[in-house]
């Protein structure tokens, strides 16, 4: 059976034009997707059911036992952390936030180790953004800074920027200028009209130089800024000012390098400055499928996009204190529920070491690095393959991911709803019938 317009569950490009062939409850073909997306549909390393480590290996446990264990762990913890969320649905994320609220825990997402600095910068100076179709239909200058879309978001260029036909561009590819800024040549740099090869840690200085140029203060620019020649900077400044519509994309090469959120602030202020000449927008290249959805739902429920601490009853936000890595590294956290992510593969050593010391339950479809640290893993459906649910694209457009297979796994949201309900039952929160 050929399914049209399937939503890809891999990255935050959220391509929704996939053709997926399903035969006998198995994906046998994926068209239109990139390799990363296609692989996810056909990956097979699912855990069959909940498992718990024993001295000899792993024991299967029932769903009821698994949920009971999770509830016990969360209710007996003093400083529980609920972490992850980037590859599941908004519905599941919302339940996770409410569980944290109910138990006075901390809830955080993978955001805190990817685009957390972007959010901090936005909280200082705002965010001039747009949906990706604005770029597709209008942009004649595109900048990718500290990101390599050809390898990390492979269809970004063909769907939204360089190779995409646009309403106001007759021959999009020829009429667009592509600028890539990075500390090393990448596949994306290879296709750029201008490659800005800057020294590691030089982003802030180069962005400042461009801001000065756009403001007309060219006299203060030295012969080289972080390895970039004055001539190239002046040239780029002109290209940016003369654009009809410019789009600035940036990735973790800018958020997680020297300068962190100050880099992003500088990029936003460059875009502000350019808006005094022409139209410019800025978009973070969010990574995982629905990492942005967590920021959205966490904001409308708690007021803050990530790193929320409910231990005093209200929502408290202080990244650096209430972020997952910090709570673990300070050895404060005494139980951790991981959902739809793999902190053991990505966190610094001190945080992972503490993860090994405390009870951990992971809700995730597959075996990953965090599995080794788990006291229980509950496999669930993959949102976008065997579970449906809402995901937010990197530009904030929400799309409903589809369920195209039924493999018998519960969705994350089903497990979390049971956990939430049992916690409320045990805390005797008055169950109220709907109005």
């Amino acid at each position: 059976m050929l399914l049209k317009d399937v939503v890809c569950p891999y990255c935050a490009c959220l391509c929704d034009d996939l053709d997926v062939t399903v035969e006998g409850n198995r994906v046998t073909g994926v068209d239109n997707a990139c390799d990363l997306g296609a692989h996810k549909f056909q990956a097979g390393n699912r855990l069959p059911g909940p498992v718990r480590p024993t001295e000899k290996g792993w024991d299967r446990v029932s769903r009821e036992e698994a949920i009971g264990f999770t509830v016990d762990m969360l209710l007996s913890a003093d400083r529980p952390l609920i972490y992850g969320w980037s590859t599941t649905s908004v519905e599941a994320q919302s339940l996770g936030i409410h569980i944290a609220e109910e138990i006075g825990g901390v809830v955080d997402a993978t955001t805190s180790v990817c685009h957390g600095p972007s959010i901090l910068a936005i909280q200082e100076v705002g965010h001039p953004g747009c949906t990706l179709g604005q770029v597709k239909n209008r942009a004649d200058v595109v900048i990718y800074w500290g990101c390599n879309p050809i390898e990390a978001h492979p269809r970004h260029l063909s769907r939204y920027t360089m190779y995409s036909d646009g309403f106001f561009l007759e021959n999009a590819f020829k009429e667009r200028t592509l600028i890539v800024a990075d500390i090393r040549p990448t596949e994306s740099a290879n296709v750029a009209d201008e490659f800005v090869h800057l020294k590691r840690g030089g982003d802030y200085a180069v962005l400042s130089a461009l801001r000065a140029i756009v403001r007309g203060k060219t006299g203060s620019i030295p012969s080289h800024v972080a390895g970039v020649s004055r001539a190239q900077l002046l040239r780029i400044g002109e290209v940016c000012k003369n654009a009809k519509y410019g789009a600035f994309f940036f990735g973790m090469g800018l958020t997680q390098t020297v300068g962190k959120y100050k880099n992003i602030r500088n990029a936003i202020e460059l875009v502000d400055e350019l808006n005094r000449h022409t139209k410019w927008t800025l978009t973070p290249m969010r990574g995982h499928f629905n990492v942005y959805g967590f920021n959205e739902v966490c904001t409308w429920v708690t007021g803050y996009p990530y790193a929320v601490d409910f231990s005093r009853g209200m929502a408290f936000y202080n990244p650096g204190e209430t972020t997952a890595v910090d709570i673990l590294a300070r050895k404060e956290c005494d139980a951790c529920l991981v959902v739809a992510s793999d902190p053991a593969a990505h966190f610094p050593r001190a945080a992972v070491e503490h993860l090994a010391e405390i009870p951990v339950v992971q809700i995730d479809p597959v075996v990953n690095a965090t599995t080794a640290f788990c006291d229980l893993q509950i496999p669930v459906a993959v949102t976008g393959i065997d579970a449906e649910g809402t995901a937010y694209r990197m530009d904030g457009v929400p799309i409903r991911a589809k369920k195209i297979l039924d493999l018998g796994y519960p969705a994350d949201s089903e497990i979390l709803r049971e956990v939430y309900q049992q916690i409320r039952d045990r805390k005797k929160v008055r169950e109220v019938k709907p109005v």
Partner: protein
Amino acid sequence: MTELLLRNACVIDPLNRVNGDVMDIAIRDGWIVESVGNGAEVIDARGFLTLPGGIDSHTHICGTKVNFGRYMMPEDMRAGRTIRKGVMHATSGYSVPTTYGNSYRYSAMGYTSILEGAMAPLEARHTHEEFSATPLQDTMANTLFDGNWPVMEAVKEKDVKRAAAIVAWTLAAVKGFAVKLTNPGGTEAWGWGKNVTCIRDPVPHFEVTPAEIIETLIRANELLRLPHSVHLHCNNLGAPGNYQCTIGTFDLVPDLNKERQSLYATHVQFHAYGGTSWKDINSKAEPVAYSVNRKPQIVIDMGQMMFGKTTTMTADGPMEWNLYRLHHNKWSNHDVELETTSGIIPVYYSKKSLVNCVMWAIGLELALLVKDPWQCLLATDNPNGAPFVRYPEIIGLLMSKRYRDEEFRTIHPDTGKRVILDTLDRELGWHDIAVMTRAGQAKALGIAKIGKGHLGVGAEADIAVYPIRIRDTDPSRDYAAVVSAFQRTAWTIKRGRVVCRDGDVVVEGTNRTIWANSRVPEAFDMGRDPEFVKKFDRYYTVRMANYPVQDAYIPRSGCIESEAVL
């Protein structure tokens, strides 16, 4: 079956011509009925003022830009937080509260239905997700068509029916309630960093004018038999001298509907400025109100501004950019492909600012100069003019000349040279306020017929009981008591059940979404129109099949059906 009897209620129910009678209200299974049995639960309202549940016909409470306001302003989140307690979730935020914060605070003020003022169709799913987390009100979404490419193409071709068909398809697809135009044409121009100044400027590339968009959609709206009229945020918001643009816009409006207005002009305070610059800005509330008084086809809301900190957020992206360059605070913008845009900046309205003082006076002047309260509704364009929690103070100001004079003495001393507020003696009465905060909204939105905004038999039992006895209160003198009463109901009843008691929410609740579905003949089904489908596929970045909001997002649906006449 659940029954409730509200006894000794001092009822003002303008739609049923009840004005201060003390009576009992019988409720069965969420609806008002003639009588209930002896077993009914009884609430003694003790002669307190009892009104239909409040309705906000223009507020920003859910969706992309509202949430971005929260996202970019942790300082605002910290400015209003409450703990998890009973059935209440923790809340954050002062000017842009979290969804539960909005819902609880509106409920405490007796509001049971609210309309989100601006939803971009492409991002409708987001608005509906937040509606689901706004449990104590029924919600509606104004749907933005100001920069809609297919609509502008139909306008250019002078094809009203095609414009209507596009509106019908879109509203049904995104579960929208009404047609919203925010700075029509200007939001598309903003795609290039440009704007239109008034209704006769052509939109770049599309070669239509705001006036043509407005006129076409007013007619299209009536062809679709939609419950609400076109809901317009006029061009040139916030600019000195813009009142002429506003009056010029009002002059475009034909009278096409016997039951309600043909145009709802929102937050008119922001559109009633005289002068040529910030230096000589002055009030033009008088000519604007004069225009409204002569045109029964127009209803406005005040868009009252109140002093203090708040956040401005609107689909009027270019206006926010201008405001940003004035305030040099932080600025967010979000352009939406083929449809619209939006912008956000935080502001502080100061009594030391002459401009702000003039704005404050204009909103009140409008309400006092428009003769018929059904034509001027109470709102602040929450949170643009002020957070909705300030409504009770506005009620106090409208009911008390003394309160206005006291306030007037505290503001910029030159204000009196720019406004006429201090010369207006009118004091609105309880009935006027009931019109301006619920009955008028129900009529203007076209939802009285589904049982909103009144307390007659057959109405939905959404009721607010305020702890004040109107016969013992002189609002002119005791305005503080009036303000206090409207800040916190004794009981807010939603769908026949007490949901809020003395300010504390007592049930979790579930939201209902009211939306409009106008059935068009098959020939006008845009889902099958080759040109529409082709352009959709080519220029949107979301597939047409994935665009409509699925039923899963509308857990409780209140669809208002109509038959289009095309």
